[in-house]
């Protein structure tokens, strides 16, 4: 680049500013072939074999194999015709074989730029680049595959181009960390394997994994694979206590298995998790097999969640998540929030939130409780289903199920715990809501990201003169909005006005 910007736009390593059209890396053909093979040839092989090798099976298999040829040709043509370039504040992608398509993405609208590498891609030194814009949950542009250096260079160019397009000031420090040069970026956090083991071990999702595994093993039994029948010696009659023990043992086994999988998943999936901040962007690098780099422009963050699961609270640990408008779909996510930091120690939460929200002080928060009648409502909500279930089971299955009713007093304890973890706080410029016993979630919503505010009442809440305040943001996905549950009605109505006024008075959202 010999333009006048040369001094303020340092060249990225190894690649020129792509103003002339660029093609994808030739290895794209290999990966397309693999993808076609997966879609066509594998089912062909399986179909052919499982149908017993009969005529229909063979026709099916050969049919699929034939279909793979035009698919391969199409993929080759797509590679040959694909071009990308950056021109004048826009990323331009040209593609298409029969019908040419040009997609123009204004850099100012770019929101997330991620490079993604599968294991094979890491081995061969290539990566996928995914570009996302605001107001969409889909990836707007996928460049698959580029040489890793080209991908990182393009990512940097897009980000600096975006900053220029938005008119924000840029200096020599705008250059993002590339090739391990992180002296200009501020490192926020780094997770070691020991931390990741802890993260996996204390994750609430372990239970979910156990359930998924159990279901998966169930499904395996449905497959038409014939196993040899084992010859058991005569089994003595199983008595009910033995069956019960067996069932409990099985449940325990799945829980332990899920726990183990959770730990391994965390250690591998979040391997070498590094969080950095560089001039208005947050950057995550993590992963052992598939190394992921995600960039989140801070102004796109709609809200932040501090999650303290039951297992983590005694150890003073938390996990941090971000809600962005149009969260990256390439991220593997079990919840609908983007993981910011899988594990953080409580004293570090304040500086981490300050990295995203500079004028916010997590440590200085004082929470106001909600109305004590929330306990009563929670008790009714927990006790009624238990009693109904006991009654139904007693009627349809076994009268002994009535003993379940003894759980009712325990429901009051549960209701009390639920109440104790509810709360809200109003900090200068931020609204904070907290709820949850199994997983205590603290929402941090900046005033200028509040979209609409609602006060809702279920019939039961009306009976107890309670209400729930819902603070709606633009966070994408199946996100629950920040809620303050079970406020006294008077508090609720005044809070509705207060929070709405904050949203109105806050500086322009953007």
């Amino acid at each position, binding site marked *: 680049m010999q333009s006048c910007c040369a001094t303020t736009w340092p060249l990225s390593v190894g690649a020129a500013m792509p103003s002339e059209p660029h093609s994808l890396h030739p290895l794209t053909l290999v990966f397309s072939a693999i993808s076609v093979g997966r879609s066509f040839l594998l089912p062909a092989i399986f179909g052919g074999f499982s149908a017993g090798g009969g005529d229909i099976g063979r026709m099916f298999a050969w049919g699929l194999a034939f279909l793979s040829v035009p698919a391969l040709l199409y993929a080759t043509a797509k590679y040959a015709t694909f071009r990308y370039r950056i021109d004048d504040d826009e990323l331009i992608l040209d593609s298409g074989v029969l019908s040419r398509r040009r997609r123009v993405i204004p850099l100012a609208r770019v929101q997330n730029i991620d490079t993604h590498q599968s294991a094979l891609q890491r081995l061969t030194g290539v990566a996928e680049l995914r570009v996302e814009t*605001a*107001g969409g949950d889909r990836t707007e542009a996928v460049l698959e595959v580029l040489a890793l250096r080209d991908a990182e260079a393009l990512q940097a160019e897009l980000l600096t181009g975006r900053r220029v397009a938005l008119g924000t000031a840029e200096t020599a420090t705008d250059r993002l960390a590339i090739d391990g040069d992180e002296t200009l970026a501020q490192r926020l956090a780094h997770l070691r394997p020991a931390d990741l083991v802890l993260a996996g071990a204390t994750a609430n999702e372990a239970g979910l994994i156990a359930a998924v595994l159990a279901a998966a093993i169930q499904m395996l039994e449905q497959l038409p694979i014939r196993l040899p029948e084992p010859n058991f010696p005569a089994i003595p009659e199983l008595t009910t206590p033995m069956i019960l023990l067996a069932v409990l043992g099985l449940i325990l086994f799945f829980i332990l298995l899920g726990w183990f999988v959770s730990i391994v998943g965390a250690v591998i999936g979040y391997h070498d998790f590094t969080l950095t901040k560089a001039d208005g962007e947050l950057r995550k690098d993590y992963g052992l097999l598939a190394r992921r780099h995600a960039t989140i422009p801070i102004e*796109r963050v*709609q809200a932040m969640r501090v999650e303290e699961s039951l297992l983590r609270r005694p150890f003073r640990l938390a996990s941090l998540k971000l809600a962005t*408008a149009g969260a990256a779909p390439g991220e593997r996510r079990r919840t609908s929030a983007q993981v910011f930091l899988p594990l953080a120690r409580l004293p570090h939460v304040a500086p981490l939130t300050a990295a995203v929200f500079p004028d916010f002080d997590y440590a200085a928060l004082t929470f106001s409780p909600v109305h004590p009648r929330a306990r009563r409502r929670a008790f009714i909500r927990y006790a009624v289903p238990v009693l109904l279930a006991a009654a139904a089971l007693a009627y349809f299955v076994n009268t002994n199920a009535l003993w379940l009713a003894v759980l009712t007093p325990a429901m009051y304890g549960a209701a009390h715990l639920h109440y104790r973890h509810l709360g809200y706080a109003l900090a200068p410029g931020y609204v904070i809501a907290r709820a949850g016993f199994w997983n205590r979630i603290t929402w941090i919503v900046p005033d200028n990201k*509040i*979209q*609409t*505010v*609602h*006060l*809702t*009442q*279920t*019939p039961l809440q*009306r009976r107890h*003169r309670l*209400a729930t305040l*819902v603070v*709606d*943001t*633009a*966070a*994408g996905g199946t*996100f*629950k*909005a920040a809620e303050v549950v079970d406020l006294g*009605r*008077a508090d609720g*109505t*005044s809070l*509705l*006005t207060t929070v*709405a*006024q904050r*949203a*109105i008075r806050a500086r*322009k*959202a*953007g």
Partner: protein
Amino acid sequence: MNTEDTPAMAEAGQDDSALRCLDGRVTLLWRVAMLIRTVVLTAIVLGAQGVLDPPVPTALIPTVVAALGIATVLFLPQARFRSWGYQVRADDLFVRRGVLWRIASVIPHTRIQHVDTRRGPLERWLGLSSIVVYTAGIRGADVTIPGLARADAELLRDHLAALGGGGDAV
């Protein structure tokens, strides 16, 4: 002070007398819609009963369904009409509604992305319109105010669009 008996939910700083109501014809709209739904639902239940053949007297379930449907047709529209109120205030739009599940919403003018008018076949027959206020939010993303006289809907739409001015980028 406000007690449990008032049909409206007490709103601090919100004068109930300043709230505008929907057009009265909307109760007719709701009655017709609910009647149609009741008939369809009863037909479905009858059909399902014919296929599944549950161990209950034949007339029981469809009668219950039909009775519930008729009850909603008779009593719900009026209650719902009374529960609806909206007001365009200085800085925001206030909307409240709900018979059993109550909800009061505040939409700052600066957050309004755009405002649509919508007219279904029943609404067209009665000369009514709904407006839909779009924000960038998720839970309260589209707030719909139904049962407005067509002219009023157009006026309200223009008024809100002028106040909103395209809304803030996210």
